[in-house]
């Protein structure tokens, strides 16, 4: 999911950088003082997730976890993902500093979209909470693949061919991330509901057995 340095055109890199700067600024303004530790925890999870490899047949993909970060943080996902990507680039040589803006947009925009699409379902019932988490994990990767395909398409590659190649390589990770995000959100709502937005914690209307 990390586009390497030297692959994208200057224009695509510039657009990515501008969107990232705007998104990060808005995100930083939206973070409450109390929420800062949660942002750090989720940024850390995102930072180490790319080290976890999933080998399914000939395909080898790594976890991303942008779904859970976006679902729980909303707009604050932008600075969280940007920080983690900078550190992944510096410490593990993933992606690259020039492609940072585009990589951040690819992973943060779908994450934020998941927050607005699926957070209203979280806390309604245990089943719906899991479903919301699964869909957030699944579709965040799906949309990230489409954005990645678009970035490569604007550079010089065939959009449809590239998107099919990226999505088919990421189908296993979409399912795995869906399951992880589903369990993660259900588990957090049980043991550490403070990490979820206050309105969701207040909405939870069932008792744990």
């Amino acid at each position: 999911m990390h586009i390497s340095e030297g692959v994208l055109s200057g224009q695509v890199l510039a657009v990515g950088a501008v969107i990232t700067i705007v998104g990060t600024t808005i995100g930083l303004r939206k973070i409450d003082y109390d929420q800062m530790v949660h942002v750090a925890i989720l940024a850390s999870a995102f930072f180490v997730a790319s080290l976890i490899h999933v080998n399914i047949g000939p395909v080898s993909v790594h976890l991303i976890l942008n779904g859970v970060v976006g679902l729980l943080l909303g707009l604050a996902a932008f600075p969280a993902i940007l920080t983690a990507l900078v550190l992944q680039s510096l410490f593990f040589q993933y992606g690259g500093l020039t492609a940072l803006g585009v990589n951040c947009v690819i992973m943060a925009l779908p994450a934020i979209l998941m927050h607005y699409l699926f957070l209203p379902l979280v806390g309604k019932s245990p089943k719906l909470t899991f479903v919301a988490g699964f869909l957030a994990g699944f579709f965040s990767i799906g949309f990230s693949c489409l954005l990645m395909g678009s970035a490569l398409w604007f550079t010089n590659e065939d959009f449809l061919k590239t998107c099919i190649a990226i999505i088919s390589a990421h189908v296993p990770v979409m399912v795995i991330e869906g399951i992880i995000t589903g369990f993660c959100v259900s588990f957090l709502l049980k043991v550490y509901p403070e990490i979820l937005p206050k309105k969701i914690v207040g909405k939870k209307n069932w008792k744990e057995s």
Partner: protein
Amino acid sequence: MKKILFLIALILGISSTSALAHKVIVFAWVEQGQIHIEGSFGSDRPAKNCVIKVTDSNKGLVHQGITDAQGLYSFALPDTNDSDLVVELDAGTGHSGHWTLPKDELGMEPTLKSLEEKMVQKQSLEKDPSLARILSGIAVIFGLAFAAAWIKKRKKDKSNA
């Protein structure tokens, strides 16, 4: 606080079962009149069937090929070349890596010592990120978060005063 520590422990637990992600590693060396190229995504994952492009310092294409099932590719040294050569491995969907072969390395046969040095260089490229690096990254994230929280608190206190 206990819950936060538990979550941090969970993150570290995940990282201890780590493997390399998609970092494209290209390594090239000259031996017996041939340029040998090895591409991988880490020590045990060869970059199979990936496009190799070799260009000179003016970005002119010198050679092109495709890696085999072991991620290897070799070709004869070009006769007319008079510059550094840049080896690019395109693993598709935005993943690529580069390796530069300096001009003075192209004309001479490598010694055992220089080959050993290259191997050390290669192994360091392929090494998994150490636990120290992972922990340092997490420490930086928390350091930044606490700095941001401190700034936000100061602003809040000022506006309340």
